[in-house]
C-alpha cells in the first residue's frame, strides 16, 4: 500500500513515504532538542512567528494569499515532546498537482516557502518589533484561556505538583510567566541554535516521483549531520503521595491522579501501554465501564500515559460530593491488575483494538509520518511493534501493574460557600 525511501537530503535524514491513496502531499520538518524551561517558551513563540511572516512575504495577508493561490496549501507548526525532548514541527500540506487543471508546480513552490520560513529569523530586526510584541500578547492570551478549560487547567496543576522540581512540568506549550521577558534577540539566538544544533528530519507522505528529492533539497542544507540521542527521563521512586486541592466557582469537580511506572524493556513499555488501554484508555476500559457506567461516579473518566517516560495520568470529571469515593474506586480498579482479576479475552480484545488503531493511523498522511518518525527514533535493536505486542501476556501485565505507583492526587472543586447555594 505504501513504500518508504530512506535517504539524506543535504545531510538531513529524509523519509519519503510513497502512496496513491491521498489527494495531497504532506512535507514535515521535525526539529528535536532537549526540553528545558529556558527554551520551551521561546520556541513556541518563535515557531508561531515563523509561519506567519517571511522575508518574501513580510505581511501575514501576503503569505496567506500566496498559499491560497496554491490551492490553500496549509503551513502549520506544532510543538510536542517525546522522552526528554522537545520537538518543533513544521508541516506543509498541499493538493497533488494531478487534481489541478492548470500548470502550477505546487511542490516546488511549497519547498521554497519552507526555506523562506526557516531562513527568516536570521534577519529579524527592528522591522519585526511590532509583530513580535503582538505575537507575545496573542501567546499570553492563548495560555491564559487554557486556564478557562477546567480539565486542561487541573491537569496542568496536577503536573506542577507531581513534577515540582523536574523539567517535565514544563509542558510543550510553554510558561506564561516567562513570555514578557523574552526579547527579539533571544529569539534570534534560539533560532540560530535550532538551525545549527537540532536533530532535523524531513518526512513526506503522498504520491510523488523522483523529482521530490530535488524539491526537498531546496528547503535547507547542512555541512554535516546533527544527531541527538533520544532518552526517557530516569525513573524516580515515590516516597509519599502528594496531595493538592484548589477551589473555583464551578459545577463539576475535576479529579486528577498521577502515577509513575518502573519500566526497563521494550516489552515492559508495551505492556504498560496495553494495561493503560484496559485500565482507562478506551470506552471499554474498567474505569469507563465501572466508575462511569456502573457506579455513575463520573461523567468523564479516562487514563492516559506517557509511554516513553513511564507516567500514567487519570483524569475525571466528578460530582463534588463524590471525589473521595471516585478516588477510592479508581485505585480499586488498578488493584484488579495487581491481583490478576481480569479476563484473558479482554487482553486479546485490547490488543486487537491496538492493531486496528495502528492500521487506521496509516490512513492519514500525518499518521504515516508519525509512525515513520518514531521508527527513526527507536534504538536499532528494538523489536518490531507487532513482536513486542505479541509478547504481552497476563503475567507481564500483572508484573507491570505492581510497578505502577501513585504519586499525586490533585482536585479542583467548588468552594464551600458555593456548595451552600
Amino acid at each position, binding site marked *: *500500500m505504501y513504500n518508504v525511501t530512506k535517504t539524506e537530503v543535504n545531510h538531513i535524514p529524509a523519509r519519503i513515504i510513497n*502512496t496513491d*491513496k*491521498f*489527494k*495531497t502531499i504532506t512535507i514535515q520538518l521535525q526539529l528535536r532538542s532537549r526540553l528545558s524551561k529556558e527554551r520551551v517558551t521561546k520556541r513556541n513563540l518563535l515557531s508561531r512567528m515563523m509561519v506567519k511572516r517571511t522575508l518574501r512575504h513580510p505581511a*501575514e*495577508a501576503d503569505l*496567506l*494569499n500566496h498559499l*491560497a*493561490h*496554491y*490551492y*490553500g*496549501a*496549509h503551513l502549520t507548526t506544532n510543538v510536542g515532546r517525546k522522552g526528554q525532548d522537545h520537538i518543533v514541527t513544521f508541516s506543509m500540506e*498541499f*493538493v497533488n498537482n494531478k*487534481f489541478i487543471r492548470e500548470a502550477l508546480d505546487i511542490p516546488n513552490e511549497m519547498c521554497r516557502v519552507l526555506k523562506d520560513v526557516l531562513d527568516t529569523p536570521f534577519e529579524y530586526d527592528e522591522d519585526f518589533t*511590532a509583530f513580535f510584541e*503582538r505575537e507575545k*500578547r*496573542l501567546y499570553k*492570551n*492563548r495560555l*491564559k*484561556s487554557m*486556564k*478557562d*478549560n*477546567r480539565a486542561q487547567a487541573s491537569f496542568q496543576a496536577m503536573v506542577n505538583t507531581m513534577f515540582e522540581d523536574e523539567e517535565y512540568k514544563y509542558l510543550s506549550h510553554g510558561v506564561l510567566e516567562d513570555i514578557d521577558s523574552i526579547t527579539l534577540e533571544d529569539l534570534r539566538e534560539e533560532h540560530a541554535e535550532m538551525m545549527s544544533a537540532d536533530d532535523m528530519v524531513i518526512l513526506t507522505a503522498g504520491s510523488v516521483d523522483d523529482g521530490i528529492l530535488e524539491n526537498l533539497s531546496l528547503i535547507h542544507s547542512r555541512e554535516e549531520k546533527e544527531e541527538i540521542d533520544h532518552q526517557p527521563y530516569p525513573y524516580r521512586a515515590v516516597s509519599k503521595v502528594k496531595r493538592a486541592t484548589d477551589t*473555583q*466557582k*464551578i*459545577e*463539576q469537580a475535576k479529579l486528577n491522579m498521577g502515577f509513575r511506572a518502573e519500566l526497563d524493556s521494550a516489552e515492559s513499555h508495551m505492556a504498560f501501554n496495553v494495561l493503560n488501554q484496559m485500565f482507562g484508555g478506551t*470506552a*471499554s476500559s474498567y474505569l469507563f*465501564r465501572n466508575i*462511569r*457506567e456502573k457506579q*455513575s461516579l*463520573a*461523567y*468523564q473518566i479516562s487514563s492516559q500515559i506517557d509511554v516513553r517516560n513511564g507516567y500514567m495520568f487519570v483524569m475525571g*470529571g*466528578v*460530582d463534588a460530593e463524590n471525589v473521595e469515593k471516585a478516588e477510592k474506586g479508581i485505585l480499586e480498579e488498578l488493584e484488579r491488575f495487581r491481583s490478576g482479576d481480569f479476563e484473558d*479475552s479482554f487482553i486479546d*480484545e485490547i490488543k486487537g*483494538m491496538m*492493531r*486496528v488503531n495502528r*492500521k*487506521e493511523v*496509516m*490512513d*492519514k*498522511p500525518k499518521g504515516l509520518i508519525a509512525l515513520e518518525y518514531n521508527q527513526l527514533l527507536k534504538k536499532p535493536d528494538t523489536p518490531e511493534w507487532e513482536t513486542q505486542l505479541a509478547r504481552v501476556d497476563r503475567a507481564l501485565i500483572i508484573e507491570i501493574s505492581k510497578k505502577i505507583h501513585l504519586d499525586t492526587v490533585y482536585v479542583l472543586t467548588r468552594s464551600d460557600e458555593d456548595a451552600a447555594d
Partner: protein
Amino acid sequence: MQLTEYREIDEKVYSHKCTNGLEIFVIQKPGYSKKFATYTTKYGSMDDLFMVDGREHRVPDGIAHFLEHKMFEKEDGDVFNLFSKYGANANAFTSYDRTSYLFSTTEDFTKNLDLLMNMVEKPYFTDETVEREVGIINEEIKMYQDNPGYKLYFETLNQMYHQLPVKTDIAGTLDSISEITKEHLFTCHSTFYHPSNMVMILVGDFEVESLISHVDEHQNDRGITHIPSIERKLPEEPAEIALKHKVLEMDVQDTKVMIGFKKLQTLASASERLVRDLSMMFALDMVFGEQSPYYYELMDSGLIDDSFNFSHIEEISFAHTLLTSTSDEPAKLKERLTEIIKEVKKDEFFTDEKLANQKREVLGDYLSSLNSPEYIANQFTKYHLDGYDLYKLPEIIESITPDDAKKHFIDVMDPNNMVECILKPHG
C-alpha cells in the same frame, strides 16, 4: 444499485434504496484499511413536537440525545463493549436535526455492521436504566455549563430566538430529562428510527455488490411495510431578535464576546440555502478573514486576539451568523464591526480577484478533506439530508459570484437583527 462517478475528483458512489425506505450509499476508497459506517436518523434536538399518522406528540427537551445514549444499552449489556470486542471504534452524536451512530474498523466489517444495525433498530428501555441515565446526562450538562465558550454560545442563541428550539441545549436540562419515561423513548424510536427516515453511508475499500445485498437482506428480514407520515411542528418564530445586549459573569481569565446576526429562514429550496451558505462563507472570509486588512486593523488595535472566529449557519429552519473573540473592549469591538459592515456595503470590496483566491483555497481544503473517510461519511450525510450532494460542491463553489457574496452579506449582517453577549470575569 446505481453508480455515480465523479471523474474530476476521482470518487465513486454507489447508491441503493431498500423496499422499507432505507437509503444506502457506498463510497469507494481504494487502498484504505479503514472502513467507516454511519447510520443516521433525521431526528435531532429540535424535533420535540410532531404528528405521526395524524396524532400529535410533545416530548421533553433533550430526548433525542437521551435516546442516543440509551440505544447502546441492551438487555445483555453495553453494545459499546461488543464493538470493541469485534475490533471497532464506535460512537454517536446528536445535533439539531439528526442523530448519527457510527463505527470504524479495519477488521470484520460486516459483523460490526450487523451489530450497528441491530443496535439502532432494536430498542431496549426499562424504568431503571432510564433513571440511571438521568444521572449520567446531568453530569454531561454540568460539564458544558463550566465551559465558557459553550455558555456564551447558548446565551447568544437565547438572545436571538424567542421560540425556536435551537436555543435549547441539545442535551436538555436536568428538569426536562427528569421527565423522560421509557414510553417517550419507545414513541420517538418507532417514529424517527423508521428506515424511511434513515440513511446509511459506508466508506472504504469494499466488495460493493455483496455489501449492498447484505444490508438489503437484513432490511427485508425486518418485514417493515408501513411507512408512517411524520410531520414536524415548529413554533412560530418572529423575525426580530429577543434581547439585544447581555452581560454574564463567570470564573474566566478574560472577557469574551459573541455577536450574532439572526436571519429568519425563508429560503425554501436546498440549492438557495447552499448558495447563501457558501456566499456567506466567502464574504465573511473576505471581510474578516486573515487575508483581510480589517483583520489586522482589529488585531493591532487590540480589539480581538487570535481566538477571533466567525461562521454562518444555514439550516432548513433557521440561519444566523456568529462572530466571537476574547476582547478587552467589547463595546469598541461591536462599534468597529458595525462600521466595517457599513464600509464594505459602500465600497467595491467584494472583487473577482479576492473571490478567485478564496475559491482556490476552499477547493484545496475540500480535496484534502476527502483524504478522510470520517469527513466523507459525516459530510455526505449532512449534505444528503439537507438535499445536496457533497461531491457536487466544486460546481456550486465555481458558480458563486462577488455579487452573491455582497448581496447575502448585506442581507444577513443587518444591525437591526444583531445581538451581543459579553462574558466577563467575576468582580
